[in-house]
């Protein structure tokens, strides 16, 4: 039998199995190999609940989806072309995401009676045998047995042996989609650098998986996906949390500031801590505080002392930071507050994505306490957006919100990374001592943008006292004067508004500058909306798409853009938070498309809504 190689434009593969099966690792390594082949790609890791369920159960299923192609890719894909499952639970939970006629590759050893039982499937109703998968191309193999057999010479225990199953799968799927094994081998060598036996065994498993594809005479065709025509440049793959971490280090370096990262662990923000803690050689201080209140408070202390202060959390932890954010607003110190949003309310669904904290970012503090807000729109964009957040925080002496979400945080995409020397400059607004001054230092004197200065402790002549009580204009002394209070409330608000002056106009990601329908998005819906617009265009439906990075202040030209369309559609993973703001601030009767399922939109959900609105 000759195996044909078929060329595809794009493919969506979903891996699923038990949390203990190393699914995320298969996904990440397959992604790396794919990135090196210069396909464009998007990924979506879909973790199980925060705690480990017993192996084999539905609750324990871990998934990873990758979408890659020879053209631009902006999402991890809606339904998948190929589903790779390690056990019965993985199949049961994920078969709904497989396209009609799609491929299933299943580890038949994961469908024994025990596994069926754990997945709540009747023993006599094995889906691999009962015909329920008839519409799909199903390929099964005893992957556990094959792996055990293949690496038995290394003398590993069963546990260690079975852990290599994922490398078998990675090898097999690499074969099927024509990916080279080099990067995976590199990875294995690094990961097991301390135990050569395990390293060799894993590499062996990888190879036998690959060969199995070649020799097993199961597959009639292999697939090939050419490199995508991407902008020239240097690329790497990156997740949102990694990109945010690098953006912080970069900003601190370019600003000449020590980075102080005060936080308390929480899903899905913790990985930024883990990443930053590895970069101590950049002088980065990561402070794992006793709670979120101490996290932000210590960060304010560091900002006061002249560090680039950054604090991060998700939902519940952001609630706890609100009081201290108010203090930072009064103190007018640089402070970046990262919120990697997850599905709420309360503990909610900690590993699932949602965009439901926009209004919290706007209004989640007592009193009139406006804060600038930016949101990243893709994993790699986390770098640029947080870099900009740092720049504005430092140059406008203000706390600022950076919004990401679980989908961006864990998703990966190719990143055309910049060179350090090309990054924007960041200029701290230091107070200087005027050698001739006879007056004492005035901590609340402002420049024409209304920005006050950063008076670092240690500098003679700048001694001053600041605090959370209302302060007198210019002097910063405590003031209970009525008129002064109103003045200060308005100054603080105007300072945030003034940021808009230094920002570029909002531009269009698709479509004309006026027309029937504008899709206005923010945050992680970017790729899906963009793809929907492209697909609609193919169908001859022309819509415009503009995507907000700046949520507060809104871009200067937003009002004009909004008024240039008959209809405005705002898709959000919440009940309509941006929609309320747009309606309330611009009196534009925007339509919402809302999905609150802990899952991102699919492309078709967007395009169907567009068609409905244009019908």
């Amino acid at each position, binding site marked *: 039998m000759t195996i044909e190689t078929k060329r595809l434009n794009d493919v969506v593969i979903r891996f699923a199995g038990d949390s203990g099966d190393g699914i995320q690792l298969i996904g990440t390594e397959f992604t790396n190999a794919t990135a090196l082949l210069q396909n464009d790609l998007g990924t979506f890791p879909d973790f199980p609940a925060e705690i480990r369920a017993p192996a084999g159960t539905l609750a324990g299923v871990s998934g990873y989806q990758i979408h890659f192609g020879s053209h631009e890719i902006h999402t991890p894909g809606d339904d998948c072309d190929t589903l790779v499952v390690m056990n019965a639970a993985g199949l049961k939970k994920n078969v709904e995401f497989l396209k009609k006629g799609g491929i299933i590759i299943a580890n038949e050893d994961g469908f024994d009676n025990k596994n069926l039982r754990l997945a709540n499937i009747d023993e006599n109703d094995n889906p691999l045998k009962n015909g329920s998968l008839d519409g799909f191309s199903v390929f099964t193999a005893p992957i556990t047995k094959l792996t055990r057999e293949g690496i038995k010479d290394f003398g590993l225990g069963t546990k260690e042996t079975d852990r290599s199953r994922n490398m078998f799968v990675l090898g097999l799927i690499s074969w099927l989609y024509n990916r080279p094994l080099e990067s995976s081998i590199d990875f294995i060598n690094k990961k097991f650098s301390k135990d050569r036996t395990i390293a060799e065994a894993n590499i062996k498993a990888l190879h036998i998986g690959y060969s199995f594809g070649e020799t097993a005479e199961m597959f009639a065709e292999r697939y090939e996906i050419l*490199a995508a025509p991407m902008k020239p440049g240097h690329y790497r793959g990156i997740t949102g949390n990694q990109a945010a971490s690098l953006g912080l280090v970069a900003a601190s370096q370019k600003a000449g500031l020590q980075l*102080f990262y005060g936080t308390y662990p929480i899903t899905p923000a913790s990985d930024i801590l883990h990443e930053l803690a590895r970069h101590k050689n950049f002088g980065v201080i990561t402070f794992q505080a006793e709670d979120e209140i101490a996290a932000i408070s210590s960060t304010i202390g560091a900002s006061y002392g002249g560090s680039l202060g950054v604090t991060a959390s998700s939902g519940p932890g952001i609630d706890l930071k609100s009081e201290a954010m108010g203090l930072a607003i009064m103190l007018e110190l640089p402070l970046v507050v990262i919120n990697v949003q997850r599905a709420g309310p309360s503990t909610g669904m900690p590993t699932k994505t949602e965009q439901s904290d926009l209004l919290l970012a706007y209004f989640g503090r007592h009193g009139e306490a406006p804060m600038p807000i930016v949101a990243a729109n893709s994993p790699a964009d986390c770098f640029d957006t947080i870099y900009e957040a740092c720049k504005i925080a430092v140059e406008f002496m203000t706390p600022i919100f950076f919004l990401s979400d679980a989908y961006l945080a864990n998703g990966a995409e190719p990143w055309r990374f910049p060179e350090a020397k090309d990054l924007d400059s960041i200029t701290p607004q230091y107070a200087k001592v005027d050698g001739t001054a006879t007056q004492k230092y005035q901590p609340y004197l402002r420049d024409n943008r209304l920005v006050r200065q950063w008076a670092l402790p240690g500098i003679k*002549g700048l*001694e001053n006292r600041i605090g959370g009580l209302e302060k007198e204009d210019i002097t910063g002394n405590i003031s209970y004067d009525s008129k002064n209070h109103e003045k200060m409330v308005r100054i603080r608000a105007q300072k945030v508004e003034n940021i808009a002056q230094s920002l570029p106009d909002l531009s269009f990601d698709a479509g004309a500058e006026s027309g029937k329908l504008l899709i206005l998005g923010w945050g992680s819906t970017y790729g899906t909306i963009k793809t929907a617009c492209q697909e609609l265009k193919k169908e001859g439906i022309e819509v415009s798409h503009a995507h907000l990075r700046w949520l507060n202040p809104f871009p200067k030209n937003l009002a004009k853009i909004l008024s240039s369309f008959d209809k405005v559609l705002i898709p959000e993973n919440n009940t309509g938070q941006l929609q309320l703001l747009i309606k309330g601030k611009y009196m534009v009767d925007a339509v919402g498309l809302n999905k609150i399922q802990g899952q991102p939109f699919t492309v078709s959900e967007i395009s169907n809504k567009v068609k409905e609105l244009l019908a």
Partner: protein
Amino acid sequence: MTEVLQHIPEVFTAKDLVTDQEVRWCPGCGDYSILKQVQTVMPNLGYKKEEIVFVSGIGCSSRFPYYMDTFGMHSIHGRATAIATGLKTSRPELNVWIVTGDGDALSIGGNHFIHLLRRNLDVNLLLFNNQIYGLTKGQYSPTSVEGQVTKSTPFGSLDHPFNPLALAMGADASFVARSMDRDPKHLQQMIERTAKFKGTSLLEIYQNCNVFNDGAFFTYTDKETKAGEALFVENGKPLIYGEGNNKGIRLNNTTPEIVDLTTGEFSTTDLWVHDEKDYLKSTLLTRFFDSPDLENHFPRPFGVLYAKERPCYEDAVHAQIAYAKEGKEADLDSIIRGRQTWVVK
């Protein structure tokens, strides 16, 4: 940033520490004395004025920074300890002081308080204990005595109060001391010891709130009762107190006993000799916390009860950073690049 204002003198005096802000405590408040003693001692500590930072929370006591012409932050309720932690960790060369009240430190701020002590940053923690919430006009605090009638406890408070120094010892404090607003000399000495100790130094100051809890500590501060009720401890000296030093404390195995030094049965050589570095005995001392109404009660100890240095958190942080820097050049491009890259032409 290194320019120098000509009209500010190189060496400063207590007067240079006075700000242009009106001091806004009630007339007669014990806070005035504490401010005075801090201003008196400060110029002798060897710091430049601009290196000193006072961080406070919220409460009458927390107004303190406004009256010290150094750097200062009047923050939010209970968080001064956490803010100071970030400041000191990031700027270890600064001389950081925390001013807090019994409510600020032990009620809302209790968690940061114990974590600060555990981490042992080299900061100075002045706890103004007036056994009441002053600023909010007189509710009981976690140090108020049982049965105290206050605005929020018209029938008497029911909470068992904290013993702040014992709590601190439980949290592995490295320095705990106690003084009082009404003994300026002792207070000055204690402020100096607090300042000079390397590590988190906790100085509890009994402070009279003459408006909402007048006389809470008069037993220890009043001429008539002070000698018999306040036990001033000094390192290496036996525990002696009482009118004319007529009483002493000895240790019978692990049990402390009050002995009469006038009968001839016991002499000072029989007494417990204070050892600041003995954790166990210091713990025992912090447990001298009897109500003065109790029969045969122990006196309340003042002075440095415990002082034993151990590594400071901020030093470990910067040592680790230095170590990491030695190990690996900080090349921004290299981390942006990461492990695997490819080029599109």
